[in-house]
């Protein structure tokens, strides 16, 4: 086998290995992105449910005020959810603002894990506090159980 044949074989082997590594890397990246997309959609779903259903302030007439949250309800909501046959957990906190000062309530729920991917989302809403509707942000961190 002369030098040229060795060179051709080496290049072929190099190309094949590169192709296999590319495919393996793309597959791994695709799986990571798929997990992140799933987590992102689940966090959107959870936070929508919180602001429009579970955390909503109920006025004295018994009517639910959508997009107005009541911080007192944070302690009574479940922090484990099953969505699409997968189990998820989340942690929640509330930030609100009076004039130029920011305050926070919480955190509520278990601490996020260090060994799994998590997704954080915050949405603005109104917070019912002492007869006032204050601008606030509800923040959740979601991970797969």
């Amino acid at each position: 086998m002369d030098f040229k044949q060795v060179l051709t074989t080496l290049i072929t082997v190099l190309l094949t290995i590169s192709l296999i590594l590319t495919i393996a890397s793309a597959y791994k990246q695709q799986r990571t992105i798929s997990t992140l997309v799933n987590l992102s959609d689940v966090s959107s779903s959870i936070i929508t449910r919180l602001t429009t259903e579970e955390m909503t302030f109920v006025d004295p007439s018994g009517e639910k005020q959508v997009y107005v949250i009541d911080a007192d309800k944070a302690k009574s909501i479940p922090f484990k959810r099953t969505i699409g046959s997968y189990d998820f957990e989340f942690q929640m906190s509330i930030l609100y603002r009076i004039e130029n000062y920011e305050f926070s309530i919480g955190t509520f729920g278990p601490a996020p894990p260090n060994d799994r991917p998590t997704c954080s989302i915050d949405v603005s809403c109104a917070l019912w506090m002492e007869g006032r509707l204050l601008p606030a942000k509800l923040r959740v961190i979601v991970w797969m159980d």
Partner: protein
Amino acid sequence: MDGGKVIAGKTQGDSVDGLNKLGAADVLAIAFMFILLIASTMIIHAYSFLPLNSAMDRQIELKTEHIYKTLELAHVYPYAISYSRAACEILLLSTPTIAENILRLRFFEILEFVCPSGYGIYVNFCHENNSWGIIYPEGSNFSETQFTKKGTITLAAAGGAYAIVKVELHLFKL
């Protein structure tokens, strides 16, 4: 006959030598394979980010809806009137509950609080030929509007009179 065999032998030997040579065509083929490999890698990686970008867009769409509702519901401290209603009063009333300069300041503060990082917000209230708007961050260009939420606010007065104010909220990438 012998001469013919020699000629035939030379011809066969030459063609085998020719195949073993690394010619320009072979170099081009290898170079093309490398280019193809790099291009396919880049395409695969770029394509795999598309679902993540779509998920981010869905989150921003959700945030746009929530920002609109927050302006509609949350009160301007220490008044008992919402941000959107206060802006409508600027358009409709000669003596609004909150003066325009104070409201502009308060609006700027709330937009700073609710605005997602890397984005800007433009809110415009329009009644007939009058309009009142605010943009955060100040002086940013909102031509590339990504997410828009439109709605109306109805203000009723004593005696059955009412006015409808159109509201537009644009969330745009900075």
